[in-house]
């Protein structure tokens, strides 16, 4: 028996789960029936649900999932110790995303500036490195505290303008990242 999940918005229970690499899962959650994923009915049932943890049963195998973080419609889910990122879109928001990407001329180069004055104590990347969003770029020591500055985007380190030991002022350009699409 599937758990009842009722979603009132727009009477639509159809979602598109989009991963960072652009992989998509079309998920339809009907009331009192098995979910339909990518147009195939999957006999998945929910055995347990506590806080943000689900235990699914599928093909005789148990899958323990844990929602690590959520921000609006973006979720980080851990299944069997491995982390996945999905943004949950409705049909309209998915189409909107596609439309905007096609017509966008998104900023190619992202500048990373020092948020406060301080001393560069560590630089974790080199020119040409691929960094993921959230990965540490460099350490800035200020107010007797180490501030780890992480990357705001997934991209490639285009150029580094400082070296370890440099004293920098606020908003000084530390490094530049090239934005890579998708």
């Amino acid at each position: 028996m599937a758990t009842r999940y009722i979603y009132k918005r727009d009477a639509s229970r159809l979602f598109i789960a989009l991963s960072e690499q652009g992989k998509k899962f079309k998920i339809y959650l009907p009331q009192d029936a098995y979910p339909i994923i990518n147009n195939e009915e999957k006999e998945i049932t929910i055995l347990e649900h506590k806080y943000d943890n689900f235990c699914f049963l599928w093909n005789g195998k148990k899958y323990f999932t844990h929602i690590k973080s959520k921000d609006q419609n973006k979720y980080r889910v851990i299944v069997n110790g491995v982390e996945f990122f999905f943004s949950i879109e409705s049909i309209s928001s998915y189409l909107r995303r596609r439309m905007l990407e096609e017509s966008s001329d998104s900023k190619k180069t992202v500048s990373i500036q020092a948020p406060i004055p301080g001393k560069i104590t560590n630089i974790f990347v080199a020119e040409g490195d691929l960094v993921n969003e959230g990965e540490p770029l460099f350490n800035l020591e200020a107010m007797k505290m180490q501030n780890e500055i992480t990357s705001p985007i997934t991209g490639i380190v285009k150029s580094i303008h400082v070296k370890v030991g440099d004293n920098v002022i606020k908003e000084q350009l530390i490094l530049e990242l090239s934005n890579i699409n998708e």
Partner: protein
Amino acid sequence: MEAKKILIANRGEIALRIIRTIKKLGHVAVVFRSNRDKDAPYLEEADEIIDANESLQDKVIFLDADKIVELAKTHNIDMIHPGYGFLSENPDFARKCIEAGLIFIGPHPDHIYQMGIKTIAKEIAEKVGLPLVPGSKGVVKTIDEAKKIARKIGYPLLLKAAGGGGGRGMRVVENADQLERYFNAATLEALNAFGNGDLFIEKYIENPKHIEVQILGDQHGNVVHLWERECSLQRKHQKLLEEAPSPSLTDRKRSSLGKLAVKFAKALGYYSTGTIEFIMDEKKNLYFMEMNTRLQVEHPVTEEITGLDLVEWQIRIALGEKLPFKQKDIPLNGWAIECRINAEDPQNRFSPETGFIESIRFPYHPQLRIESGVTDGTYISTNFDSMLAKLIVHEKNRKKAIESMLKVLEETRITGIKTLVPFFKVVLSHPDFVKGTYTTHWIENVFQHEMLIRPEDEMIAALAASIAYAMEYLPIAGENIHIQQDNINFWVLNKRLR
């Protein structure tokens, strides 16, 4: 034998493991409580706890030799077990214990000292007839000397620090142009890390396997070997998985290697536990690397195939007992594999994880041995190393051992932080591991974090996220919010009062 008070100068899973044996032998287990690890699970199992009370500026107790000895004396301790890491291979600490009248559970401080200097170890190995990796005889003092040796043994070559390991002070030199630059860099790094900038040079082995032999000796000159372990799955020179015996040796090779190890130990006059490390090249040649004088993290796999309790024998040997068995009495039963479950994220370059362990559950399996230093609610910080637990599986052959370990990993559940559990599932299923051909460069050259993604896990994740999203908007769509209506509407009341 009367009960001795044995102090363990260590923490985490090894403290728990040593406590177990101490209690089994009827002795008293004493531990330290560090201010940086106040609620650790090992404290619950000890018979007695000594509060270390370190201030923020102090060293952590496990690294403070003088304080340890002082506290041991005031608490009437008989013997000290250093565990692994921390001060276990510090000859000064061993000497201080002995001078204070305590029995140090380990080898003679002189042997700790000698084996700590890689060049001395190699000299002795050569004298005894062990094969060495072609390289410098002892420390290389100048660039010119280095160049001479390079000409003799050829490139690529490896610069190594004489004073310590773990990859520091180490450089691979591919060609003559790099030699001078890397020589200077490695010297500086070694100086900073160990206080000793001496380097020695070896031929660089391109696809090496790491094989080590466990030996056990008493204070009466008897030494036996307990077979070998293969520890080739490493990342930045840190071992992650070990197995006993090694899939890369034939039975004949195994015996002769063991004999060589015993020969080395006897030549030294060594007693207690020790591990002699070898490196194996692509042509299956074995070369002596170094000797470790501490009890190693991976000792359980050896215990499983021989049926011996190594900690027990360390204690007995320290008390002067004679080994009651000979080499022919040492069995080799089945196969054992150990996985080090570290709090590291294999999806993100193995970066260390910090945070609370929400829950940690290992399955029950008759052939599974668990050595865990943490429990639900333990906070993992950067204060100590990231190893949470060791999983050891012992089966009658290697194939079955791999199968069982995979089953155990599949049913292990750890929430709150990410661990290497999914990584080991990938390793144990990979043909390189199954065939036993993996080398110490496997993680660097072959492993990719995309291997961790299983399509069905990904789909379940998408489903879970969608359900969570749908459920979150239930209350926002109006189900759970209501107003506590009083009889009079306040808005109207306000107007009437004006």
